[in-house]
C-alpha cells in the first residue's frame, strides 16, 4: 500500500521516533513533513532532531521557539494544514500509548479522507506489550482514542542499544505474527539497528522484511 500519510504509534519505548525519523529521512521530494505530536514525553522527541531533518529536506512540524522544549499539550495548527495538502508527504510521530494517541483523534476525519498507514511499533522487551494479549489490548486502546484503525505492525524488539540475540528477535516476530493474524493486519517489517545487524545477520532467522536503521536517539555518554 503506497500512501503519503504515515502515522507512527506504539507504546513508550517502542521506537516510534526512531522509525519516524528513519522513514522521514528516506523519503524523497520537496514536501515532506514530520509532525511531532508527542505531548506525553518531555525528552527524546522528533523535535530534538530538527537540524538533521532540515538539512536533509524534511520539514519539522512542532511547537515553535521556546515552546518546543515545553511539556505543554501544544498541537500546532500546521498539522491540520499539512494534512489538507494532497501532495504533501506527512509522517506523524504520535506520543506513547493511548494517552499519546488521544491527541491524534482530532485529525481522524481529515486523515481518513486519503489512503493512510497507521503503524504500530512493537518492542517485545517492554513489559506492557510482552505478550500477544497485552499487545492487542494496547493496540485496541490506541485505536479507540485515535479513532483510527491500525493498518500494520512493525516489529522492533530492542534494548535501547544493548545487544539482543537472533532468538529474541525471532521470538518477537513470532508474537507479532500471532497479533497480526488475530487482528487481520499485516506485519509490515522487522526493524534492526545497523550495528546489531552487522553482528547477527548470519544467524538471523527473522522472515519478515527488514528495516535496517541507524540509531539516532542516544544517551549523552555514547561515543
Amino acid at each position, binding site marked *: 500500500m503506497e500512501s503519503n500519510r504515515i502515522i507512527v504509534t506504539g507504546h*513508550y519505548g517502542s521506537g516510534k521516533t526512531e522509525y519516524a525519523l528513519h522513514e522521514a529521512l528516506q523519503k524523497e521530494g520537496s514536501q515532506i513533513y514530520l509532525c511531532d505530536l508527542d505531548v506525553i514525553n*518531555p525528552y527524546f522527541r522528533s523535535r530534538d532532531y530538527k537540524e538533521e531533518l532540515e538539512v536533509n529536506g524534511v520539514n519539522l512540524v512542532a511547537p515553535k521557539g521556546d515552546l518546543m522544549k*515545553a511539556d505543554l499539550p501544544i498541537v500546532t495548527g500546521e498539522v491540520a494544514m499539512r494534512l489538507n495538502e494532497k501532495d504533501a508527504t506527512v509522517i506523524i510521530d504520535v506520543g506513547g500509548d493511548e494517552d499519546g494517541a488521544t491527541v491524534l483523534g482530532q485529525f481522524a476525519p481529515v486523515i481518513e479522507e486519503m489512503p493512510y498507514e497507521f503503524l504500530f511499533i512493537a518492542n517485545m*522487551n517492554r513489559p506492557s506489550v*510482552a505478550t500477544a494479549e497485552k499487545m492487542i489490548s494496547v493496540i485496541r486502546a490506541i485505536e479507540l482514542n485515535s479513532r483510527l484503525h491500525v493498518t500494520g505492525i512493525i516489529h522492533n524488539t530492542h534494548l535501547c542499544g*544493548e545487544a539482543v540475540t537472533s532468538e529474541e528477535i525471532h521470538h518477537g516476530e513470532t508474537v507479532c505474527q500471532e497479533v497480526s493474524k488475530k487482528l487481520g493486519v499485516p506485519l509490515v517489517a522487522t526493524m534492526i539497528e545497523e550495528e546489531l545487524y552487522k553482528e547477527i545477520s548470519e544467524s538471523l532467522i527473522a522472515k519478515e522484511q527488514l528495516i535496517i536503521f541507524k540509531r539516532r536517539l542516544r*544517551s*549523552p*555518554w555514547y*561515543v
Partner: protein
Amino acid sequence: MGKVLMKGNEVIGEAAIHAGCYYFFGYPITPQSELVAYMAKRLPEVGGLFLQSESEVSAINMVYGAASAGKRVMTSSSSPGFSLKQEGISYLAGAELPAVIVNVARGGPGLGNIQPSQSDYFQVTKGGGHGDYHTPVLAPANLQEIIELTSDAFRIADQYRTPVILLGDGMLGQMMEPVEFNEKTETGDNFMKDWATTGTEGDGLPKVITSLDLNDVKLEQRNHRLQAKYRKIENNETKVEVKNVEEADYVIVAYGTVARIAHSAIEKARQDGIKVGLIRPISLWPFPKKIISDTSKNVKAILTVEMSAGQMVEDVRLAVEGKSPVSFYGRTGGIIPTVDEIYREILKLGKGVTS
C-alpha cells in the same frame, strides 16, 4: 525474570514495590510524572495504596502519617515540587520517621525548565529545611542501580529511622535501559517498629510521634541523639565507586548521569595515554571524604564536573584540603555536558590550567 526495557521513573516505582513499599502519595511534575502514573497503575494491582494529593505539601504530610504507622512509604517530585516538601522533610527528620523521598531534578532556580540538572545538590545534602538535620542521599547513575539503591534507601530509612532522599535528574528519569529485577521481594518486616502509632493494647503509655519538644533540655537531647545517629550513618553508609584511581595522574569527581559522561571522556583521554581516574560518590550525604582526601595526595589535579554552577565541588575542596588543585566544569539550565567538553577539560589539567 530476564531483562526488560524500562524508563527510569518506572524503575523507581517498581523498585519501591520490590522493596516492600505499598504506599505512595504524590503529585505529578515533569520530568518525574511517569513515576506517579506508574504507581497509580501498579499499586492497586499489588494491594497497595496510591493517592494523588492536592499538592506536594499534602503529599509529604501523608507520608508523615503512613510512616508514623510504621509502613514503608514513598513520595516523589522534581525540583520546584521537592522544595515544597522541605518543611515536611524537616518534620520527618525531627520526628525520626523513615520514608523515601525522590527528587528527579530539573533546571532551576524557580520554575526553571524541564531539562535535567544537578543544581539541587546543596538542598538535598545540607539539610534543605530548617533545623540541624541531614538526610542520607543516594544518587544512582543507571537504571539497574536505581533498583539496588531504592532497596538501600528503604533499609537505611528503617534502620536509622530517618527520611532518605533518592536523587536523580530528568535524564535518569526519562531514559530507557534494560533492567533485571529479583524474583524475591522485600517486606521490611525485619525492622521492629515498636514506636509505630498503631494503637496500644492498654499495656503502656500512648505512643506519640512528634517533632515538638517545648522543653529546651529535652530538645537538646533530641538533637544529640540525631547527631549521634548521623555520625553512625557517616561511618556505615558512605558509598562510592572508584575507577582507575591508583595509577592516575588526574581524577574526575562526578555523580549520577554526569559520571557516565565523564567516564566516556576518561576512556577517550586514556586512549591518548593520559592517566585519568574517576571517583563517583553514590551517597552524596554522607559524602565519601576519605577516598577523595587520600586520592588527592597522589594526583596532580582533581576536576569536578556537575550539571550545576558548582555545588558538590565545595565538598570536594573540603575533602581535599588543599592537597591538590581542584578545578570545576559545569553546565547549567538543563544543558548536559558533552563527552568532548569534559575531554577538553582533562586536556587543560595536563597543561596545568585550573580554574
